């Protein structure tokens, strides 16, 4: 890390790349939250818990598969599916009974579920933190335009746009995506067209949970997997969704970019307060555009 005060072009470039790779994870998590908020109108607090479960699950799967590169790939695919299954059980079990309640009740209800989830994680994985070193395939750095850049971050950098493209395809080109977009605008009308809204809700919720799990699995090799990581991500994800415009997936992308880039560039300018800068950016954006940058689906 460069010393504070001296900002060279190289260090700036490197920080931008680091910020962009962090943006990928933030975008994946926040777009899931945004999807659920937009279509189901649920401010889902246990989205963060699912992210944490995804990270712990990725750790356990990778380690039990012998900590190989192949094991990591399998964990990366399997962990989100397990998290999505957990989400499906919760949605079909209790959440679907509450769709007509007001937001406040839904907020508290999902918070209650997050309390239970964090206790379950404590029960299964203990209070100790875990750390997963990146698999062999992702260890080391590669030169990018003259600076050495960690391979895993590069992988995230490539994954981000691919994910965004996939999400665009899912929401704009597939039938279920079009139905869920319509449901987010006028759910009753969609029901009147003879579409099983209940099923659409379940599908969207599971996709949202999948994204939380995927985000968790992706962050696993990058930082300590620890109790309480759910609290941090949920507040960040909520802020990203708010500045993007509630329920707008592309707003979530913009929000994630603002969040990721301000904190990584801020690390150069003002190291002590680098994590404060995204929050300042959020407040500045919201003072001028209180309902978010892009149009909310509400």
């Amino acid at each position, binding site marked *: 890390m460069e010393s504070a005060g001296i900002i060279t072009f190289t260090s700036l470039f490197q920080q931008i790349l680091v910020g962009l790779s962090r943006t990928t994870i933030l975008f994946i998590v926040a777009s899931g939250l945004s999807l659920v908020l937009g279509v189901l109108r649920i401010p889902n607090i246990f989205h963060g818990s699912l992210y944490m479960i995804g990270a712990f699950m990725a750790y356990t799967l990778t380690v039990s598969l012998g900590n190989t590169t192949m094991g990591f790939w399998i964990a990366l695919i399997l962990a989100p599916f397990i998290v999505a299954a957990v989400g499906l059980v919760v949605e079909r079990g209790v959440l679907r009974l509450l769709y007509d309640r007001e*937001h406040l009740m839904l907020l508290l209800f999902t*918070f209650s579920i997050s*309390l*239970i989830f964090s206790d379950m994680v404590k029960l299964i994985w203990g209070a100790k933190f875990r750390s997963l070193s990146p698999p062999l395939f992702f260890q080391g750095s590669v030169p990018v335009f003259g600076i050495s850049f960690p391979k895993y971050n590069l992988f995230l950098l490539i994954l981000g746009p691919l994910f965004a493209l996939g999400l665009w395809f899912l929401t704009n080109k597939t039938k279920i995506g079009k139905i869920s977009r319509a449901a987010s605008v006028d759910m009753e009308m969609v029901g009147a067209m003879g579409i099983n809204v209940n099923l659409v809700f379940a599908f969207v919720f599971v996709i949202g949970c999948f994204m939380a799990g995927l985000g968790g699995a992706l962050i696993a090799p990058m930082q300590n997997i620890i109790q309480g990581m759910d609290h941090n991500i949920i*507040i960040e994800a909520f802020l990203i969704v708010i500045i993007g415009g509630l329920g707008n997936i592309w707003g979530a992308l913009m929000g994630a970019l603002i969040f990721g880039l301000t904190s990584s560039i801020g690390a150069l300018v003002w190291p*002590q*307060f680098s*994590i404060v800068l995204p929050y300042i950016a959020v407040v500045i954006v919201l*003072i001028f555009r*209180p309902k978010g940058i892009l149009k909310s689906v509400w």
Partner: protein
Amino acid sequence: MLDGLITKKSFFITLAAFVIFLILPQFLPRFYIYLLAIIFVLGLLATSLNLVLGFGGMYQFHHCVFYGAGAYTAALIVTKGGLSFWLGVIAAPIVSGLLGLIMGLICVRLSKLYFGMLQISLGSLVWVLVFRWYSLTGGDDGIHGIALPDIIYSTQGGYYFTFIIASICLALMYFIVKSPFGRTFQAIRDNPGRCEALGVNVKRHQLIGLVWAAIFAGIAGSLFVVVEGSVFPELLFWNLSLEVFIMCLLGGWFVFLGPLLGAAAVVALRSFVGIYTDYWTTIMGIMMMLLILFLPDGILGFFQKKTHKADKCMTEEVG
């Protein structure tokens, strides 16, 4: 005028409760006195949230910012300012009220979920500043061992101070709820559009309500310092705001004393079930889920509906 506010019966019940809580510490072991004091601190905090939430219908999603701001003000005046703690107790509600005014001016432009979301973002900024500003606030370690005046240093002294201040604040809030302002506030909760049409300045009422709530939360924060002797950034974290919500819902948020009861229930659960198991939050979570599914009016609200005999002056009818 007081006749309309308090009936004879409820006056004597309140007086009896006041005397009981005044005498009780003489017979209780220290741990229980401490618990009672914490219940009054959190009860005051939850009631102040309920002022805007239950009676104003505002989605105050990040109320704890004001609580933490009050606590940190009281603590910093002693540790950094080197001044008397009494000054901190006076400064805490002022700082919280100003913070409430600033946040309110930005937030009241919006309503419902947008209001709440904007408040979460502003509150998180305050939290992250406290969390990182090591030179001033001690960062994530917080500030410990704050020097308190001799009178309130002992557990009993702290309890009496907390209890008396909390009682005064609860009484004040009760009068606010019953005042013409409070009535208008509840009318805004039930139908903001009609109030607007009747010539009520909705946004200004909401702003004033928010500032009052922030002031009382700030007082609760300074009382927390009296009881605990320390402050830490978790006081401003979003999770605590949500826990205070739980207290309001648990007791019932259309009932004036509901949040106090809810705070007592949560503290009791944490202290007594927490001895036997680390997983007391699961019990709280399951309780909350059942409550939301089956008793959305909370415990007191349920009994009030059930008996129809509840004292109408101590409690508030659902609109």
